[in-house]
């Protein structure tokens, strides 16, 4: 990877000017691609209930606003969310494998994954073992993903690379290939617990891997930037990058997700602004 050219390309794509109907389309799609996330020690069943309600009907006064793709939670909260979301089409994603550090014995990670799936998770967001990666034990990273994938059964597996800890774009590329080879359905940038989380260049780097894999093998892998995407403008920049890197085939929640918590409200505000011509105060949107 060449960092200068990669970052320059990302900066150029970020300058695209997306207006009017194309902006509305992008914002609508951004919601349909969103994994509405809460990953806090203080999460309660009540908070999750509120989150689920918001996931299904993000804007209570505008029924044309679509539901999000999924909610993303800790395993303990999966069961409650599953009940709330039954029949809505909104998926439940659970983090697993000793999120966010990944520093647990493999068998416990596999057991955690199995438990999350048994509790009803449709999707599993696992973290790779960065300690193993950095010490050159790539086969351990690989084997672990293979085992977790097996434990997932029918659940979709997203593999979090935690790019903020990988140091270089070359490492991001290597980790992406490793995860895809081991069976990842999605590769995901970050846990959201480390700074920097998702950035446009890092996501572009992962998209290029996905594109290479698609051209080599015909297999389509999804991408999920997560963490730090708070503004509609950023979301649109990611969609532009996706569109110009992987094309319209990837412009679907099946192949692209945003991991975000506060992004949704900003998107709702922007949609309302585009539709009414006026900015609303943040007070008119629910906090959770």
């Amino acid at each position, binding site marked *: 990877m060449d960092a200068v050219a990669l970052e320059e*390309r990302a900066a150029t794509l970020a300058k695209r000017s997306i207006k009017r109907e194309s902006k509305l389309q992008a914002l609508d799609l951004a919601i349909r691609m969103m994994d509405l996330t809460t990953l806090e020690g203080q999460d309660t069943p009540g908070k999750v209930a509120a989150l689920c309600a918001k996931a299904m009907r993000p804007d209570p006064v505008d029924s044309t606003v679509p539901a999000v793709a999924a909610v993303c939670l800790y395993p303990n909260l999966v069961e409650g969310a599953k009940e709330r979301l039954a029949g809505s089409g909104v998926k439940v994603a659970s983090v697993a494998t000793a999120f966010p550090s990944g520093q647990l014995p493999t068998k416990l990670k596999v057991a955690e994954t199995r438990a999350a799936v048994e509790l009803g998770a449709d999707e599993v967001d696992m973290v790779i073992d960065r300690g193993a990666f950095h010490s050159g034990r790539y086969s351990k990273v690989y084997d672990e993903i293979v085992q977790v994938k097996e434990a997932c059964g029918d659940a979709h597996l997203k593999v979090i690379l935690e790019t903020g800890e990988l140091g270089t774009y070359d490492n991001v590329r290597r980790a992406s290939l490793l995860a895809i080879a081991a069976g990842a359905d999605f590769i995901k940038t970050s846990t959201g617990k480390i700074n920097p989380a998702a950035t446009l260049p890092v996501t572009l780097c992962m998209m290029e891997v996905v594109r290479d894999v698609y051209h080599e093998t015909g297999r389509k892998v999804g991408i999920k930037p997560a963490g730090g995407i708070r503004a509609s403008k950023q979301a649109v920049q990611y969609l532009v990058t996706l569109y110009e890197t992987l094309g319209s085939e990837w412009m679907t929640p099946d192949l692209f997700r945003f991991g975000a918590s506060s992004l949704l409200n900003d998107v709702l505000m922007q949609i309302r602004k585009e539709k009414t011509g006026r900015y609303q105060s943040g007070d008119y949107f629910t906090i959770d």
Partner: protein
Amino acid sequence: MAQLEKRASSAPAPLEWEYAPAPEARDIVEIRERYGLFVGGEEMEPRSSEWFESISPSTEESLFEVALAGAEDVDLAVSSARGAFEDGWAKLAPSERAKYLFRIARIIQERSRELAVAESLDGGKPIRESRDVDLPLAAAHFFYYAGWADKLEYAYPNRTPRPLGVAAQIIPWNFPLLMLSWKIAPALACGNTVVLKPAETTPLTALIFADICRQAELPPGVVNIVTGDGTTGGHLVRHDGIDKLAFTGSTEVGKLIMRELAGRDVRLTLELGGKAANIVFDDAALDQAVEGIVNGIYFNQGHVCCAGSRLLVQESICEPLLEKLKRRMSTLRVGDPLDKNTDVGAINSKAQLDRIT
């Protein structure tokens, strides 16, 4: 709930996305019907009484009429430059000259949107490039050379740098304002005065620059701008009142100029065309190499003196590289130069289009 279920059951179809037009507003530039020559700090009707049209290459619309300077006009411009040189510009304290250049740099920054739109309208380059490349660089050149004006003695220890006199400068159409800055800023910083001839197809930003000189209260005659075609350039080259000639443009014309100046006491700088090669080896980061190739050849529609018009690739990666390159090229957005999402704007003129197609 029924509504939600309905939504969930329909499989998400990928979005066929189109970017809505995002044109930069063009009313920021006030284009007059007619522009005369800029000589001695004032606008002047051409003695030649000849005018020609400046055409926007993207729409072929006629933008304005501009003077075609004849021999007499060029003579007036050169004597005006000579007068300004002798009347004090050369003797002005370097730090004072620097003040004028700093002032011009700041005005370019202040009027950068206007200049960027004018550049794209008159020359066809995408607004993305005139806004993000040409204008910031043009201002930066004036700032840079302003800083040099009072430091020349330190650059050449034990020598006394002194101005040459009147610099005749002929510039091309690919980076009209940037080329102007490249030529005018160092000449003024060193205490010379200037007669500049912008390219026939792209005089607009030079004419706005004339206004900037007035706005900066630059002493009359320090910068003179004579518009016209090749014949005007010929008059300037042949004029015996010039001390220096700087030309950026075609190798063909460069040779003519060199012949013309042979045996004359006129210093010469030529910056001529040359096409460059991209060389890609198998250990390159391919996706980024593709970016380099695309920037090398499509930046400014390829209107670049060092454009990477040749591609040499190691055999083992030839196929994947070409595939990536083709895919990347299919994403280039060709269109209205004033649209903020346009990557490739208009070829500079009908004549140039005919030449390359």
